[in-house]
C-alpha cells in the first residue's frame, strides 16, 4: 500500500469516527427536541408541577435549578480560583503538590451519586442542614470544584511567563503580578470554564437527589423574606431541580401526562445547557478579541 493511499484511508476512518459522534449527538438532540418542544406552553413555564392531574408546569423546578446554580457558582468559584492561583503560581514542584493534583483528578472522576450520598451523610445528616438548597449547593461544589480548578489553572498557566516576568521586572510584587496582569489576561479562559461548569451543574441530578431533596414546596414569588419556607430566596428549603424532576417523573411519577412533562422538561434542560455552551464560546471569543485586539 502506498503512503498516499494509507493516508487517504486513515483520513476517511477518522471522518467516519467523528461522524458517528456527531450523529449520536444530533439524533439525541432531535429526539429530545421533537418530543419536548410541542409540550411548551405558557402554562408549562408558569404553573407549578401537579402530582395527580394533567397539565402541571415546571416553574418551581426551573427556578430552583437556576437558584442552585447561582449558589453553587458563588461558593465554588472563589475556592477554585484560590486553589488554581496557588497551584499555578505559588506551589513549588514537589511531591505534595503532585499529590494535591492527583487528589483533584481523583475527585473529578468520582461518580456523582457517590458525591450525593457523601453530601447526604455530611451536610444533610451530620451538619443537620436537612434536604435543602444549601446541602445541594455544597454537594455540587464538591462535584464542580475539581474540574473548575483544573480549567482555571490551565487558563492561568497558559499566560506566557514573559508576562509574569514583565510584571516582576516592573517592580510589581508576585501578588500584584497575579491580580493585575495574569488574572485579567486569563479572564476569557476563566469565564469560559465557569460557564461550561455551569452547564454540568445545571444538568446534574444524582448528586442532588439526597441533598437538595426531591420535593418542591410551593413558592410565593412575592415573598422576599429569606427565612420563610415559601420564599424563593430561602436556602434551607428542599428544592427539586429540573434534572431531579425528570428523574422522579420517570421513576415514580403519578401524573397521567408524566411522559409529556418529562419530555418538555428534558427539552428545556437541553436548551439551557446548550445555550450555556454557546454563551461560553461567544463570551470567550469576544473577550479574547478585546484583549488581543486581533
Amino acid at each position, binding site marked *: 500500500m502506498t503512503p498516499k493511499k494509507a493516508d487517504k484511508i486513515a483520513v476517511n476512518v477518522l471522518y467516519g469516527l467523528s461522524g458517528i459522534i456527531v450523529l449520536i449527538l444530533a439524533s439525541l438532540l432531535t429526539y429530545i427536541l421533537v418530543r419536548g418542544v410541542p409540550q411548551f406552553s405558557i402554562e408549562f413555564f408558569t404553573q407549578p408541577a401537579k402530582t395527580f392531574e394533567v397539565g402541571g408546569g415546571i416553574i418551581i423546578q426551573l427556578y430552583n435549578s437556576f437558584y442552585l446554580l447561582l449558589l453553587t457558582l458563588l461558593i465554588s468559584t472563589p475556592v477554585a480560583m484560590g486553589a488554581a492561583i496557588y497551584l499555578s503560581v505559588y506551589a513549588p514542584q514537589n511531591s505534595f503538590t503532585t499529590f494535591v493534583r492527583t487528589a483533584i483528578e481523583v475527585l473529578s472522576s468520582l461518580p456523582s451519586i457517590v458525591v450525593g450520598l457523601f453530601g447526604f451523610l455530611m451536610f444533610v445528616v451530620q451538619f443537620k442542614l436537612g434536604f435543602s438548597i444549601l446541602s445541594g449547593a455544597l454537594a455540587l461544589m464538591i462535584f464542580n470544584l475539581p474540574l473548575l480548578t483544573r480549567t482555571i489553572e490551565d487558563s492561568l498557566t497558559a499566560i506566557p511567563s514573559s508576562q509574569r516576568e*514583565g510584571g516582576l521586572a516592573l517592580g510589581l510584587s508576585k501578588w500584584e503580578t497575579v491580580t493585575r496582569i495574569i488574572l485579567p489576561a486569563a479572564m476569557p479562559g476563566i469565564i469560559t470554564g465557569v460557564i461550561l461548569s455551569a452547564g454540568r451543574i445545571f444538568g446534574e441530578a444524582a448528586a442532588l437527589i439526597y441533598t437538595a431533596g426531591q420535593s418542591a414546596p410551593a413558592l410565593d414569588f412575592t415573598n422576599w423574606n429569606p427565612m420563610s419556607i415559601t420564599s424563593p430566596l430561602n436556602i434551607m428549603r428542599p428544592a427539586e431541580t429540573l434534572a431531579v424532576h425528570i428523574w422522579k417523573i420517570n421513576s415514580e411519577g403519578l401524573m397521567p401526562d408524566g411522559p409529556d412533562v418529562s419530555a418538555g422538561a428534558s427539552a428545556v434542560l437541553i436548551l439551557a445547557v446548550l445555550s450555556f455552551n454557546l454563551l461560553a464560546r461567544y463570551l470567550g471569543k469576544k473577550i479574547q478579541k478585546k484583549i488581543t485586539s486581533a
Partner: protein
Amino acid sequence: MNEQIVSTENVHLYYGDFEALKGISMEFYDNQITALIGPSGCGKSTYLRLINRMNDLIPGVKITGKVNYDGKNVYDEGTDTVELRKKIGMVFQQPNPFPFSIYENVAYGLKIAGMKDKNKIDEIVERSLRKAAIWNEVKDKLDENALALSGGQQQRVCIARVLAIEPDVILLDEPTSALDPISSGKIERMLEELKKEYTIIIVTHNMQQASRISDRTAFFLDGNLIEVDDTRKIFTNPEKKETEDYISGRFG
C-alpha cells in the same frame, strides 16, 4: 569620569549542580552602554538577570558573591526585590507588552506605585514614549491595545514602560534579536540617546550591534568573563586569544 553604578564581586551561580557563572567580577558605569557578548549558553543572560534578581524565580538556583548597587549588596537579606526592580529595569528578548492599551502599559508601573494625579501620569507617559522614540507613531492611538502594534513598536513600548518608573539602570536581554533591522536601528539610536541619563547593560548576539552602540564590551565564555574593556579595544586589539577568535568569527 563616569561614576560606577553597579559592580559584581566574584559572583558564582549554580543551577542545581551546574555552575553557570564561575566567579564574575566587573563594574558598570553611569552614562555608558556596556555590551555583554559571547556564544549561546555562555552565561551572559544569566549574569544580566542576576543583577536585578530575576534569577530568583528559577527553582534550584544558588548564588554566591556580591552584586553592589547603591552602596549595598542586592543579595543581602533585607533587600526588597520589588524596590530593587524599580531601580534596575529590564527589557526582554520577546516584546512582552501587557494586554492593555498603550497608555495603560506605560502608566502601569506608576499606577501600581500609587500615583493618582492624572496630569502627572499623562506627562510621564508622554515623556517616556518620547524617550523610547515611539511617541510620534502612537500619540493618536494611545487607547489602542499594545498587542496590535508591530514587534518593534511593542518593544519600544516595553522600553517606555520601564522608563516611566524612572530607573537608574536598564538591563536589556537581546532586545532586538526578534526584530527586523529597521526596528533594531531605531532601538539602537534610542539607546544612544538614553545613555545620557541611564546606565545601560545590554546582552546581544549581534557583534556589529555591540561595536556600534556600546562603550564597553564584556566577552563571556563557558561561564567565565574572559575580557572586559573599551569596545574599540575589544574589537580591534583584544588581549585574549579567545576574544579574538570569537569576534573574528572563528567559533561561536
